């Protein structure tokens, strides 16, 4: 029986028969459907994905006319950063990095970010960031975001002023852990609103909250509060909210936004809260399981994201970086897998962007 080369979730090459591929596609979609209580992919969609995986093409592409808008988490750090961000260490200025993306990579939008890529460290150097942004806005054409992570972890000991829930919870100090998170929410909201307000003052097109919810439900709450307050002050500042994972971890467990408990929300419910808060673009995340095939992972990711685009009233730019959105967990992602994930998200999930 013919075997087709494909990959596991960690990127290494395996061979699978058409029956094995189809079985994994169905199982991956069923897993998403079960967890999210959403519809699985239809037979014709499974067949479309099967054809993608059976294709010998090194790179595949969407049908002409179906192209989508690209936004860029991590921004220029992929050029001048270290391998922690898959950066390639080219000593370019951030202005040059944006120009390279605009004019050499044909980026539809681009992003400026601080090397730490968290909001909190930007606060003491905000004037520097405003200055860099001003120069970029004068000399480039594409919409420019400023991106960073809410990263509530930076507000917990030893890096921040509040007790660390990861230390407190194992000691059974649930009340103290919750109080620390509630304090961190208020401080992070205040910091993010201050920073983004300064970026709006110099003409930023938008801001990108990347890996929202990485520190759990408190992280997501701080982000939603910040979006709401920013939109009230700066309605022309576009706000993109990209998630950290497919499922909001309930590290606090009781936090709510607009009457909805945040812990346990899957992407198709996350998007509604982002819309209510005032977000303009939503970035759902579906994590890659390294122990499963890419067929299983991609079908699962597309099933989750299709449920998002079915209910969204704002553009959906699915997160497609290493280890999410049907891409392998490998920091130099294989382009056969990346391009297949691109096609599946566009042609089946009908995303508005990547």
């Amino acid at each position: 029986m013919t075997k087709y080369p494909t990959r596991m979730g960690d990127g290494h090459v395996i061979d699978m028969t058409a029956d094995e591929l189809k079985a994994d596609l169905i199982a991956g979609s069923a897993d998403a459907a079960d967890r999210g209580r959403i519809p699985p992919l239809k037979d014709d969609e499974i067949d479309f994905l099967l054809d993608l995986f059976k294709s010998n093409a090194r790179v595949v592409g969407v049908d002409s006319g179906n192209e989508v808008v690209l936004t860029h988490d991590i921004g220029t750090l992929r050029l001048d950063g270290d391998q922690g961000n898959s950066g390639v260490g080219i000593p370019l200025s951030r202005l040059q990095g944006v120009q390279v993306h605009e004019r050499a990579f044909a980026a539809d939008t681009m992003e400026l970010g601080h090397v730490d890529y968290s909001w909190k460290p930007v606060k003491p150097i905000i004037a520097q960031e405003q200055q860099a942004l001003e120069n970029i806005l004068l000399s480039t054409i594409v919409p420019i975001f400023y991106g960073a992570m809410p990263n509530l972890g930076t507000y917990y000991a030893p890096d921040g002023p509040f007790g660390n829930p990861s230390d407190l919870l194992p000691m059974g100090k649930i009340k103290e852990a919750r109080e620390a998170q509630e304090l961190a929410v208020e401080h992070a909201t205040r910091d993010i609103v201050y920073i983004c307000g300064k970026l709006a003052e110099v003409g930023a097109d938008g801001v990108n909250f990347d890996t929202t919810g990485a520190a759990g439900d408190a992280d997501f709450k701080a982000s939603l509060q910040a979006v709401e307050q920013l939109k009230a002050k700066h309605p022309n500042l576009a706000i993109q909210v990209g998630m950290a994972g497919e499922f909001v971890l309930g590290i606090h467990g009781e936090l709510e936004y607009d009457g909805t408990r945040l812990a346990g929300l899957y992407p198709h419910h996350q998007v509604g809260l982002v819309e209510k808060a005032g977000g303009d673009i939503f970035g759902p995340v579906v994590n890659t399981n390294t122990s499963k095939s890419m067929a299983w992972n991609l079908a699962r990711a597309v099933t989750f994201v299709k449920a998002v685009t079915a209910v969204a009233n704002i553009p959906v730019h699915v997160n497609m970086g290493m280890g999410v959105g049907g891409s392998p967990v490998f920091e130099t992602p294989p382009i056969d897998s990346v391009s297949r994930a691109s096609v599946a998200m566009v042609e089946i999930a009908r995303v508005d962007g990547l």
Partner: protein
Amino acid sequence: MGVGDPYGMPIAHGVAAGMGGIRTAGDLVARMQLARRMRLPEAKAYVADKLKISVADLSEVTVMREMREDLDIGVITSVPGCAKGIEAKIRIAELLGISINSVDRLKAKMG
């Protein structure tokens, strides 16, 4: 999109599914998503209507290259005399009928 080396992430996605930025009309469609929260079909239709071309031509480089040069809204190669940076964005804001924050700021500075 997110983390990954430039060849494996932005270039791969761009080739597979990207609109093409200022090679084509990718920046213009993106502007409508940011300015009006438009989903992709609506944003593409809006821009195509403003440019008086088909939606499919928005990603067609042979159409958009000439159109961008004619409209003087910036082209991807370095052409002396063509609008650069904020010069192009002023024209894009007028073309699309939207506010662009950096353009508004420039106008405010000009008094």
